[in-house]
């Protein structure tokens, strides 16, 4: 259990949130022009890093808004929280130590 700061509601318990997987995956403009491999890459392939990861969360039990989180998947440390449409922070090594 850890605390997540919703950009609107403030600090809340993780149980109020739902994980929305990797962020910043853009749907191809013209899917029919893609090869099967390219489409599969868009659809299934994810970075799955050990370390800083940009991901989406939704405050399900609260304001029900989506936002982005930069979280270290190794330590669970939340490094940055930013709204949908905002520029993601540069990858850092902060939070790597548990």
């Amino acid at each position: 259990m850890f605390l997540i700061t919703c950009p609107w509601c403030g600090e809340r318990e993780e149980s109020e949130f739902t994980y929305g997987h990797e962020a910043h995956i853009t749907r191809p403009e013209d899917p029919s022009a893609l090869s099967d491999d390219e489409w599969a890459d868009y659809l299934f392939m994810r970075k799955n890093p050990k370390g800083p990861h940009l991901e989406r969360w939704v405050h399900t039990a609260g304001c029900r808004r989506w936002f982005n989180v930069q979280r270290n998947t190794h330590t669970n440390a939340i490094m940055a929280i930013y709204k949908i449409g905002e520029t993601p922070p540069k990858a850092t090594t902060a939070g790597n130590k548990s």
Partner: protein
Amino acid sequence: MVDAYRLRSPLDHLGLTARAQAEAEYSGTGVVLSEIAHLCLINIRGDASDPAFIAAVEKSIKLTPPTAPNTVAGKPSQSRIMWLGPDEWLVITKPGRGERAMAELWKNLKDGKLHAAVTDSSEARTCIRIEGPRAREVLAKGCPIDLHPSAFGPGQSAQCIVAKCGVMLVQTAQAKDTAGTYELYVLRSFATYLWTWLEDASQEFGVRVA
């Protein structure tokens, strides 16, 4: 709006009115539980940064939609408007006042040709009130929000979880001692569960129904 004669509170089957009469004499209870049935709840969505939208809502219900998260504007004895999200609010009014508020909102938002939505959700939820010197302790058993008076007070609200059940929590009063009064707006299918959970959690402090 449902015709008044067809309204049924989701807690009807618990016989709360009869219990309230029977338990009125109880003294020294730490917690008082009651249901505020059939409140009119109107969900509004619109652009908070558009002065025309704010003006149209103000004109309709004489209340300004709060832009500060987790706050409620208005007096508990009258109509109130609760922040639900950056573009979403809930109007809470007395039983029977909803139809007029709905009509006014429709008219003023439509007249202004505003991109907004007004939805009557009165029957979706009921309101459970919990008060008394130990009310905060009971809520603390199932709610992760910090309800200490230094962090949470009258006029503040939170959409959160109480006993694994999603609620809209509003504090309406804070006495000088530790006593606070809270309202829990709960979906009707969860109402019986939440009521029985609250009553069970209140047993150790002494509880009566009002």
